[in-house]
């Protein structure tokens, strides 16, 4: 097996707030190999974005990061700002939920694409232009030559996200982080964007992290899934294994809460009651305990560690895991 392209070791992110220290990411370990896709799933506020920003070294100024992020042989936490800038945008690219985060409203699409390409790839203007057109065509933009002269506001939301993806792909990154790339989009456009990412990934043998709150989005598209809750990874497994047999009550609850097409109308949805805990007031026991239907005494007293299940590569953090094979388990 090749060594991982990315390893996240014991990463924690703390943010000072008027209410006290907020632990956005609570000691996360993850790794990803070239050409593979990792899905990170969890509710709003569980730390998905902060974790990806920790990898990108794009945290808010006041944030405190501990742990290690190794990417393609570089220790990102210790890398000089200059080297980091060169890495980002070339080997390490990102697509945000709101494409306007990465697009500049006052520059034409052509200028933005060509600037990125020229900055990282040392191409002359005509070659950069040619490459921009190829990229726009690759992400399914009709009449790409005419698009170059347009501004972001002249494009629809789906179109803008494609352009953001074209810019992210422009320098053949080794890793692409897509943070809720389709949450703001419609189902049909969502399907197109996810198809596009999958196709480009295969073509470029690129590694990819897809962040979402919808397990449905990662089911058919990620090799491995990490489920986050209250800043921690609470379950992690190869996608097939996870959906075949989930051990965390939280993962089960997340899946159950999705409206399904084969359910009759007016069937009450199994919602997860309540909300995640206040991240400035961490709980002593399992963070999911106040909402978990399997919670018992011990869950409120101690924190379950992330540990192995009977299947290789399947980890969970729970004292009373569900769907365990006979004779194994806690």
């Amino acid at each position, binding site marked *: 097996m090749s060594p991982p392209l990315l390893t996240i070791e014991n990463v924690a992110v703390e943010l000072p707030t008027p209410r006290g220290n907020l632990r956005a990411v609570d000691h996360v370990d993850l790794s990803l190999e070239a050409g593979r896709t990792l899905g990170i799933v969890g509710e709003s506020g569980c730390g998905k974005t902060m974790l990806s920003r920790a990898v990108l070294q794009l945290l808010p100024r006041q944030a405190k990061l501990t742990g290690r992020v190794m990417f393609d042989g570089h220790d990102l936490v210790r890398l000089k700002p200059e080297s980091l800038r060169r890495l980002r945008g070339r080997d390490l690219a990102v697509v945000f939920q709101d494409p306007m985060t990465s697009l500049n409203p006052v520059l034409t699409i052509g200028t933005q694409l060509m600037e990125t390409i020229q900055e990282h790839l040392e191409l002359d203007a005509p070659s950069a232009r040619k490459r921009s057109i190829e990229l726009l065509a690759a992400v399914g933009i009709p009449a790409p030559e005419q698009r170059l002269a347009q501004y972001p506001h002249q494009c629809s939301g789906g179109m803008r996200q494609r352009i953001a993806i074209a810019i992210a792909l422009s320098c053949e990154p080794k890793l692409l982080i897509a943070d809720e790339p389709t949450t703001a989009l419609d189902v*049909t456009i969502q399907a197109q964007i996810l198809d596009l990412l999958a196709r480009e990934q295969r073509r470029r043998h690129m590694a990819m992290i897809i962040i979402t709150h919808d397990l449905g989005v990662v089911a058919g598209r990620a090799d491995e899934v990490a489920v986050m809750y209250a800043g921690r990874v609470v379950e992690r497994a190869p996608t*097939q294994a996870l959906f075949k047999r989930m051990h965390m009550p939280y993962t089960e*609850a997340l899946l159950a809460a999705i409206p399904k*097409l084969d359910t*009759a109308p007016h*069937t009450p949805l199994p919602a997860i009651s309540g909300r995640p805990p206040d991240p400035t007031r961490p709980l002593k026991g399992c963070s999911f305990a106040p909402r978990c239907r399997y919670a018992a005494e011990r869950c409120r007293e101690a924190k379950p560690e992330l540990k192995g299940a009977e299947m290789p590569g399947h980890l969970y953090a729970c004292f009373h895991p569900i769907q365990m094979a006979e004779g194994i388990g806690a």
Partner: protein
Amino acid sequence: MMQLAVHDEPLLDVDNLVVEYGLGNRTVHAVSGVSFQVARGETLGLVGESGCGKSTLGRAVLQLRRAKSGRVLFDGEDLTAMEGEALRRMRRRVQLIFQDPIASLNPRRRIGDIVAEPLIIAGVKDATERKRRVHEVLGAVGLDPDIVAGRLPHEFSGGQCQRICIARSLVLNPEFIVCDEPVSALDVSIRAQILNLLEEMKARFGLTLLFIAHDLAVVKAVSDRVAVMYLGRLCEVGPSEQLFAKPAHPYTDLLLQAIPVPDPDVRPVEGVAIGEPPSPIAPPSGCRFRTRCPRADQRCSAEIPELREVAPGQFAACHHPLA
């Protein structure tokens, strides 16, 4: 006039509604001749991609945007012909819930005042009565009135803000509510809570709903019938179960295929959703879906397909419906 499987006298009867926006010297054809009915106590789901005219339709039904032509009969009376005091009185009976719960709450006003506002506008002078109503609806949506009434919107999450919006929409005891993408901005887990809450409120207060969303599974969870909209026109209308099991319109079929299924054994079908909808400034001739339709032929560009009954209660506007 066509009857859409409504047994009783419909509470809402929308007939050939046309709504347009001026854009410089051009015209946005947002809603182009839409007809449907909603029975008392029914939930009609309305689905379609962004920009297809769902919100415009919802707002035109409530007369928040005046239609260019067509009629909106509510409980037998034509809202499009009403003005002034008559319209204001009618508006107490119909309400709207928005997509972005946080943006639709005034950040400087306390929750108690926000929820009481429709009562004040409607002229309820008795402060004790207003307070009683506000407490009742906040309690109904699962919030503790004593704790939340004095707080400001920024102290609440998106899901809680949507509960507050729902409370506000219920405070005048309306009969009919247009829910415009009430859960699109919410997380999967909170989404389920709010959908359940809407169902409960509907039963408890005897409501009739027009439920707008772009997610078919969400719509199916709460709707008796579903209407599918594309670029200003209805493509298909029918009972939820039937429409999802046997879509007759190629666009309904496309929407169904585009939904991500939470099962890794179901490989996403690639390339189903080719292209984006054309501009509503210059919609295609004939069938507006023809530029993306795999079944399109000559006739589709020449002739506008009308809604026709393809199965009991199910209507599709297509020259070559799926069998």
